[in-house]
């Protein structure tokens, strides 16, 4: 096994937790906890975001260990991460407050000896855990809802199962709204419905093909996922994309941000019944997608980002690009101002779904959800990549409201920043002297973490390569990290606020279920 060069190895799991807690207390942000199956052991990798980069702390669970002391009681942000580890590897985080299946419900005993599933002698029934990181795995893992607990309801309380097939064209998730009638004292989420086994699928691919699957992990953030994946590969190979490629990457990343934020505006306006505003923002979003399609052939910027650079120059001249961006900017800004002056709309968003600043900080809430609650950790500013360091992106004025309205305001701030960045990129591209669009980036064995700021927040990729083959790739979307906060934002909100809160989070469930 090649040395995990970028990870700091800690003696055992309690020591790992202790170091993690002290780092978080010192100001680092908990960015994820992933498992990796290895012959006879389970590696637990915790990631910490610091201004200098993403640090990785790692400890191995010894062979035959079937459980470990849970991190969640010490650090609430690990809540879903540990449930995912239990689903995928069949180990129990002992002391976890609510250990239910999250992304893959399977019946049968959860506790398993950590022996090699291919070589080790196994007795008794064995649920087919996927165990990413280990060769092989189940051919089929049929989710079994019987593995999910039934919730007790008291007199006058009932549960509204909302999903997985819901009204409208939306991704599949089941919300269990536990309500006495109108308030929502508690919400449960079942995200397993659209689990696709992405992490194991990565392990069947060559490193060069991984970017294609990264683009399909969370399609509406295709560019950000491709960037995070390629950054990990480039870090391993010690490669920097050439300047024009870095600019084209920013161009597509910011257009993707525009499209996603306009999509949130469409959904919010639609929830408020503003037909004209819905149509206007729907049209703007379509214009952005068409511009992206004209630039590269794909309306979602797919195929642009490749390891080492980009695949081609934009098919639109910088001058035309500048004109298109200017036109869009005028139209979007004007309609956004009108929307933010529509009192009946603002009434629905104000104090709806508030996330307290303290909780945002504790959880390390990502993207607009964090920023709206005064916790801003934008990877483009804190750990810049590609052309961002030289483009003079400035942090927007902080917002603190924490409600759906603040989240929308943050998005408009980001839209204004994106237009600014797009102008700069178009300007610089028009003066670019040509040259190569990618540096040679042959996969180098090793392990690295890559990140990028998606419209939803930071995307993190933890990638290992052996012999040009992916042996482990854990994509962590901002949606996975942020969606769990939906549990906490229904203080005083009623059923009719639900679509506003969901839309204001602006997440994609493909990135949650994996």
């Amino acid at each position: 096994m090649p040395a995990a060069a970028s990870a700091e190895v800690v003696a055992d799991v309690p020591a790992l937790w202790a170091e993690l807690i002290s780092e978080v207390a010192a100001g680092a942000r908990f960015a994820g906890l992933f498992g990796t199956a290895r012959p006879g052991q389970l590696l637990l990798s915790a990631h910490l975001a610091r201004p200098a980069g993403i640090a990785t702390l790692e400890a191995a669970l010894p062979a035959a260990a079937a459980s470990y002391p849970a991190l969640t009681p010490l650090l609430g942000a690990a809540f879903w991460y540990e449930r995912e580890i239990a689903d995928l590897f069949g180990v129990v985080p002992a002391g976890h407050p609510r250990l239910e299946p999250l992304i893959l419900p399977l019946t049968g005993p959860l506790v398993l000896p950590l022996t090699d599933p291919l070589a080790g002698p196994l007795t008794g029934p064995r649920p087919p855990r996927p165990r990413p990181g280990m060769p092989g795995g189940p051919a089929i893992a049929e989710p079994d809802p019987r593995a999910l607990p039934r919730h007790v309801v008291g007199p006058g309380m009932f549960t509204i199962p909302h999903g997985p097939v819901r009204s409208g064209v939306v991704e599949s998730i089941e919300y269990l709204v536990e309500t006495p009638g109108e308030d929502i004292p508690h919400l449960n989420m079942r995200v397993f419905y659209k689990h696709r086994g992405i992490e194991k699928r990565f392990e069947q691919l060559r490193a060069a093909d991984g970017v294609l699957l990264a683009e399909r992990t969370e399609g509406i953030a295709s560019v950000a996922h491709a960037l995070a994946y390629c950054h990990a590969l480039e870090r391993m190979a010690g490669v920097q994309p050439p300047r024009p490629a870095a600019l084209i990457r920013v161009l597509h990343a910011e257009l993707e941000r525009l499209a996603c934020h306009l999509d949130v505006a469409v959904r919010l306006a639609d929830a408020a019944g503003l037909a004209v505003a819905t149509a206007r923002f729907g049209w703007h979003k379509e214009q952005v997608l068409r511009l992206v399609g004209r630039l590269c052939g794909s309306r979602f910027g797919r195929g642009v980002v490749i390891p080492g650079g980009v695949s081609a120059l934009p098919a639109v001249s910088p001058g035309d690009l500048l004109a298109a961006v200017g036109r869009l900017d005028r139209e979007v800004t004007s309609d956004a101002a009108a929307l933010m002056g529509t009192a009946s709309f603002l009434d629905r968003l104000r104090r709806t779904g508030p996330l307290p600043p303290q909780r945002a900080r504790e959880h390390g809430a990502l993207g607009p959800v964090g920023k709206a609650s005064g916790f801003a950790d934008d990877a483009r500013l804190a750990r810049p990549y590609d052309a961002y360091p030289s483009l003079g992106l400035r942090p927007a004025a902080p917002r603190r409201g924490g409600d759906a309205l603040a989240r929308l305001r943050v998005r408009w701030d980001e839209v204004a920043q994106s237009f600014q960045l797009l102008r700069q990129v178009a300007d610089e591209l028009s003066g670019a002297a040509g040259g190569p669009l990618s540096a040679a980036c042959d996969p180098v064995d090793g392990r690295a973490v890559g990140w990028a700021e998606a419209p939803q927040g930071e995307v993190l990729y933890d990638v290992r390569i052996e012999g040009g083959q992916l042996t482990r790739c854990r994509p962590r979307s901002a949606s996975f990290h942020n969606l769990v906060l939906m549990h906490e934002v229904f203080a005083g909100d009623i059923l009719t606020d639900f679509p506003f809160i969901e839309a204001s989070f602006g997440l994609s469930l493909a990135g949650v279920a994996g």
Partner: protein
Amino acid sequence: MWVLRGLRNGVLTTRWPARPDQYAQDSRGPAVVAARQPANADRLPGLCPTGAIAAAGGSVSLDQGRCIQCGRCVRARPEVFAWSAGPASAALIRPGLIVPDLAGLPGLPGLPGRPGRPESPESLAAVSEQLRARTRALRRSVHLRHVDAGSDGTEEWEILALLNPVYDVHRLGIFLTASPRHADVLLVTGAGARGMTEPLRRAYEAMPHPKIVIAVGTDAVGGGLISPSYATTAGVAATVPVDVWVPGSPPTPFAILYALLLALGRLPGADPAGRDAAAPARPAPGPPGPDAAAPGPPPPGPSAPSAAGAQR
């Protein structure tokens, strides 16, 4: 105030399919084969990360139902592969997505039932006629229900785009409905996540007859890059009977609209012969630059059903 804003830009709505639409004509579809007997044909299948390319006896074919539009084949062998353009990428039968449909080519992986000879125009016409018979009663009021069976999220955006002012499918009497009990057409996206198998089956069963199922996107058609996976059924056909197959990763809104009208038999000048009824997916105009120097051969010859009637 909003009313005035709504009038600001005039009519944005396309008149397609009654009138041609430039954007519809130009938008990229799946890859196509532009040279039937290329050099080194046996090396071509290795280009494709999803195994869409097959070669036998010096001939090459491409299964658009597996094409994720990554463009590797087009970049590596521009004299053999090209992009199709235009919305007409859907087919009424799964083998109809294979271009060109070569006689005697052994079945592609994942398509065990594919006959060893091209679909005869008669059998395609029969499929089309059966579908027509089922959809005739729907006339100009068609209600759609969408179910996500493990999509990556983009197909939902493209279906939702049909409601924006540019496509505005209400003008065609097509509406989205919340309940499967009111739905005539089921749009299914995603690679067939096993968690959605039962909800999808129940949504399908809740629909009244006649009902039509459209598999939207390469993932829904055959699993795309997501399959093989322990968590998917490699396409939604394992769960519901698919009537119309729409390739694309994701398909454009026009491609989805084309598939809807194809299912309903409402394409102008429709000749009930599947995808060749209206404008077929044709190779896009050659990209500028070095590739333009190589004269692209014309679209697949007349023996390929997908090119029959390429007169629009």
